[in-house]
């Protein structure tokens, strides 16, 4: 459980994190999403006490991180891939961290096995590939068998196999009842792993919501339906919470608030022939861009508006 209250970080004039309030709950994967430079990494560094908050506070399992007697048992964090000394072997790196807490050597071997590093554990970590380095960082995060696991951009630069491994790991950890907090600037990745989303832009909280709600808020699931009698279909489908749009003279309608299945059944009930019935899901990527557009444009990016107009180029590589 991570609780941030009015969490703020200022660097001189610049405010990197601006009065963030959020709670990360156990048992689910919470995605921490925002364009590059939104303050995600700074927030995570404040959670484990590497940076101090300018004002406000953030606690982990009820206390500030530094106040725990065994911090690695509370939060396991993967911050940046290069939080190692390249001259030290993976085993020695993990062992030195374990020694500070009295974590037994057996546990060090366990996380090495869990992350699949057995064959390279005695090699210099500086010679590791990006994927291996990421696995070592995750091994370090899991070392203390922590109740909360926090990973900053864990899939960055990984091959598809590595991405899949991380995805399964995250859902597995959450299923065990742990708090899992993962940052990313890739909405498409979060859509596959996260249940809950905390979206930030320019240090401010933009949304604290579920994946489903975010999609619904930003246009929702629209169903495109073409029929022989659009005017009558309109009357049949009309109801509270249902929105129907369509050009006059066209046989196509766009319906939000009703599932394709319901529309099909109602049309059959009233003997209206349908020529087309398809769910046009707003991609999570689009919803995300919609949400963060203002905050990205502030940085003078020119690529975003283009990507925004392009219909659901999925999965879009990056927000910036």
């Amino acid at each position, binding site marked *: 459980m991570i609780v941030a209250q009015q969490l703020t970080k200022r660097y001189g004039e610049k405010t990197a994190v601006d009065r963030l309030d959020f709670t990360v709950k156990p048992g689910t994967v919470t995605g921490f999403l925002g364009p590059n430079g939104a303050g995600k990494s700074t927030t995570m560094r404040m959670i484990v*006490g590497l940076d101090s908050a300018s004002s406000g506070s953030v606690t982990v399992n009820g206390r500030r991180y530094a106040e725990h007697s065994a911090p690695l048992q509370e939060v396991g964090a993967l911050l940046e891939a290069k939080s190692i000394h390249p001259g*030290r072997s993976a085993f*020695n790196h993990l062992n030195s961290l374990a020694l500070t*807490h009295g974590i037994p050597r057996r546990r060090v071997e366990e996380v090495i096995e869990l992350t699949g590093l057995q064959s390279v554990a005695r090699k210099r970590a500086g010679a590791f590939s990006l994927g291996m380095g990421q696995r070592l960082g995750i091994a370090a995060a899991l070392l203390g068998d922590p*109740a909360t696991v926090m990973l900053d951009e864990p899939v960055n630069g990984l091959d598809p196999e590595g991405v899949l491994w991380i995805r399964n790991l995250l859902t597995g950890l959450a*299923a065990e*009842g742990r708090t899992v907090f993962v940052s990313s600037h890739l909405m498409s990745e979060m859509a596959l792993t996260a249940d809950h989303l905390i979206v930030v832009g320019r240090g401010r909280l933009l949304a604290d919501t579920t994946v489903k709600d975010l999609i619904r808020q930003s246009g929702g699931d629209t169903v495109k339906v073409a029929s022989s009698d659009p005017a009558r279909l309109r009357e049949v489908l009309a109801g509270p919470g249902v929105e129907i749009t369509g050009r006059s003279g066209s046989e196509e309608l766009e319906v939000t608030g009703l599932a394709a299945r319901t529309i099909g059944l109602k049309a059959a009930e009233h003997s209206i022939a349908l020529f087309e019935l398809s769910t046009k899901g707003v991609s999570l990527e689009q919803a995300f861009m919609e949400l963060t557009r203002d905050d990205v444009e502030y940085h003078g990016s020119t690529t975003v508006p283009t990507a925004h107009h392009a219909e659901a180029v999925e999965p879009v590589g990056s927000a910036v």
Partner: protein
Amino acid sequence: MSTVTATTAGPTTGPTTGRPAYRVTMGRVVKAEWAKFWSLRSSWITLGVAVVFLLAFGLIRDWRYTVMMNAGHVHDPEVLDANAVGLSLFGLNFGQLAVGVLGVLVTAGEYSTGMIRSTLAAVPRRLPVLWSKALIFGAVAFLLGIVGAFTAFGIGTGILSGSKAALGFGAPGVLRSLIMAGAYLALIGICAVALGSLLRSVAGGIAVLMGTLLLVPGLMELFPTSWQNNVSQYLPSHAGDSMYALHQDVHTLSATSGLLVLAAWTALALAGAAYRLVRSDA
């Protein structure tokens, strides 16, 4: 992916009963730092270099002395004032550079590589890390200095035997000088650890340390003589020299005062390092 054992079954957070009770203690941080120090090749190499410097340059100096003696340069001041301690410990001037570089690497190296983030995430109270590093490296440098000084002097007496400079381990002040050589290296090492932590830069730490030890004494010559006489003796390098010199000149501190002055400089550097470590973001 469920290899992480079933210790946190159910949606519970925080310290749950049944989980192993880990705890960060000062002793454990020392153990961890000890393991970190010896698991880097650079530690072994630099310590090896320090030993070579310490022994080789002292012995070369001993040998040069006997050559000059035999050639009849008896009135050369270099020969006249020489004693076995001064000659054999000549290598200390070079050994201290290797020790200083390694001391800076112990702390600043963590910042240049990013290791510091892992270190401070494991020990978020931070200060135990600095104290452990200073303690371990001070002890290693002390032992290195003691072993190096006794070996250099032991072999040196063999080379110098029969000459005017020859001294035995039993001669007055010899044991004190040799032990002080170890203490000197320990304090220089701790200074280096502190400077590395304070400046967070390998290059910066080494530059400041070398500047203090090698350049500042030279700069003193720009000042009036009376200043030099009163101030120079309190510089880290000169105070250090007084610690292990067999005979003190005028305008130099006694061995004990030298030790105290250098210890005060070291404490100052450590205080600065501790302040920055606690106050600034890592």
